C-alpha cells in the first residue's frame, strides 16, 4: 500500500503517474442530467432496472387494471354493442383503488429512498440542484402515473376501434379522458411525493398516501351523498373540492366525460374545481422542492 518509504533516509514518498488523464472533452449540461434522472425515475417506478421482486407490485397492479378493460373490449366485440359500457374517464374513476394503490406503493421508491439512505447528497454534489431533483422526481412520478391510467384507456380505445365503433366519438372521449388524467396524475404525484418525502419509512408513507387518496375520498364521497340526499346541493359540490378523486370526477362531470358525481358540477364551480386542483398540485410541488432543497443542503 505505502509507496516506497525508505527507512534510514527519513520519510519520503512518491506519487506514481498511473496514466490517468483529465477529461476535457465536451460535457453534458444540466438538461441532459435532468433527462437521465427523469427516465431513470420513470423506469424505477415500474421496478425496471431494479430487482425482480420490485417489479411484482407495479405490474400486478397494472395487470389488475388492464383485466377489466380487456373484458370490456371482449364483451363489446362479441356482443356487437354500439358503445362502450363505460367511458374512458369513467373507467379510470372506477379503477381508482388500483391507481391510488400504485401511487401509494411506488411514490416511496422515488421520494423516500434517496432521503432515507442519504444518497441525495451524491445527487446534490452534481450540477443539478436538489430542488431541481425534487421537481424531476415529481415529473417521473406524474408520467408513471399517467402511463398507468393511459395504458388501459388505450387498450379500450383500440378495442373500440376494432369493434367498429364511431371513430370521432371515441377520439373526443379519449381526448377528454387523457386531459383529465394528466391533471390527476400531476396532483396525485404531488401528494404522494410530498407524503413520501416527509415520512421516510415505507410503511408509513404508504399508509399516509392511502389516507389522502382513499380514506379522504371515502369521507368526501360519504359527505357528498349525504348532502345530496339532504337536498343541500351546494354542500355536496363544495365537498368535492376536498379530495383528488372527487375533483377528477367533478371535472369529468362538468366536461361531460362520463364520470359519476352525486350532484352535477356547473357554473362557477367549474373554475373553482380547476383552480383548487392546480393550486394543490402546485403547492405539493413547491413543498416537495422546498423539502429536497432543505435535505440536500444539509
Amino acid at each position, binding site marked *: 500500500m505505502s509507496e516506497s518509504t525508505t527507512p534510514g533516509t527519513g520519510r519520503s514518498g512518491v506519487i506514481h503517474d498511473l496514466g490517468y488523464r483529465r477529461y476535457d472533452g465536451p460535457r453534458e449540461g444540466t438538461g441532459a442530467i435532468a433527462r437521465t434522472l427523469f427516465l431513470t425515475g420513470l423506469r424505477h417506478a415500474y421496478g425496471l432496472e431494479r430487482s425482480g421482486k420490485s417489479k411484482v407490485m407495479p405490474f400486478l397492479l397494472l395487470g389488475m387494471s388492464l383485466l377489466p378493460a380487456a373484458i370490456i373490449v371482449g364483451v363489446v366485440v362479441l356482443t356487437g354493442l354500439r358503445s362502450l359500457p363505460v367511458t374512458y374517464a369513467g373507467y379510470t374513476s372506477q379503477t381508482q383503488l388500483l391507481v391510488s394503490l400504485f401511487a401509494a406503493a411506488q411514490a416511496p421508491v422515488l421520494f423516500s429512498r434517496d432521503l432515507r439512505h442519504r444518497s441525495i447528497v451524491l445527487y446534490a454534489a452534481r450540477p443539478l440542484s436538489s430542488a431541481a431533483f425534487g421537481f424531476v422526481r415529481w415529473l417521473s412520478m406524474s408520467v408513471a402515473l399517467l402511463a398507468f391510467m393511459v395504458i388501459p384507456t388505450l387498450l379500450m380505445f383500440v378495442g373500440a376501434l376494432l369493434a367498429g365503433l364511431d371513430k370521432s366519438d371515441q377520439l373526443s372521449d379519449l381526448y377528454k379522458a387523457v386531459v383529465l388524467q394528466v391533471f390527476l396524475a400531476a396532483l396525485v404525484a404531488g401528494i404522494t411525493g410530498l407524503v413520501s418525502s416527509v415520512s421516510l419509512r415505507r410503511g408509513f408513507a404508504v399508509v399516509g398516501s*392511502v389516507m389522502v387518496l382513499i380514506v379522504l375520498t371515502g369521507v368526501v364521497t360519504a359527505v357528498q351523498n349525504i348532502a345530496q340526499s339532504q337536498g343541500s346541493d351546494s354542500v355536496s359540490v363544495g365537498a368535492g373540492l376536498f379530495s383528488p378523486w372527487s375533483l377528477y370526477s367533478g371535472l369529468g362531470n362538468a366536461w361531460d366525460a362520463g364520470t359519476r358525481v352525486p350532484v352535477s358540477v356547473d357554473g362557477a364551480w367549474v373554475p373553482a374545481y380547476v383552480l383548487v386542483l392546480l393550486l394543490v398540485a402546485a403547492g405539493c410541488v413547491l413543498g416537495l422542492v422546498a423539502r429536497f432543497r432543505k435535505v440536500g443542503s444539509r
Partner: protein
Amino acid sequence: MMNATIAKLAAQALLGRRRFILLLAFPVLLIGLVALVAALTDGDAAFQILPGLGYPLVLPLVAILAASSVLGPEVDDGSIVYLLSKPVSRHGIATSKWVVALGATLVAGALPILVAALVTGDTTRAFALFVGAAVAGTTYSALFLAVSAVTRHAVIASLMFVLIWEGLLGNLFSGVAWLSVGQWGLRIGHEISSELPDPANLPWAIAASVVVTVAGVFFAGDRLRSFTLRGED
C-alpha cells in the same frame, strides 16, 4: 408466553414520534365526521358512515399500521436481531408484539367505532358493531402481523387484501364473505343486533376468526424462529 420487555419496546416503537399522530388521526377523523353528520342531518345518514367507511376502511387501516409498526421496521432493517439474539421464545416475541398491536387496534380502531355509533343513537346496534369490530380487529392484527413477518411489502400486501379482496371483490361476489375477516366480525355482531348484515354462518365466522388469529400469531413466531440474517442488499 408474554414477554414484558418485548411488549414495552413494541409499545415504545408504536407510540414514539410521528406514527402515533398518524394512528390518532383515524379515530379523530371518524368520530368528528360522524358527529358532524349526525348534528347536521336527521335519519340514519350518520350511522351509515360506519359500515360504509369506518368498519371496512378505518379499522383495517389502523390494524395494518399497528401490526406493521410493531414488527415491520425491525424486520425491514434487520435490527430485530438485537431481540432475537436472546434466550427468549420466538413465539413469545410474536405474541407480545401482537398483544401491543391488538391493543392499538382496539383503542384506535374499534373503540372509536363504538363511540361514533353511540353518537348516532341505538345502543344495541352500537355494541353489536363494536363487538364485530373487536373480533375483526383481533383477527386483522394477527393476520397483518404474519404478513409483516413474511414480506417487506407488508403494508401494500395487507392493503391489497383489504381494499381489493374484501372491498372491491367482496362487493361484487357475495361468496368472498366466507373468506373475509371483516364479514366474519359482522356476522358475529349480527347475533347482538339484527341490523347488521348476515353474510356467512355463525360457527364458520367464529371458527375462521379463531383459526386465522391463532395461526397468524403462531406463523409470525415461526418465521422469527427461522429469521435469517442477510448482508445488505
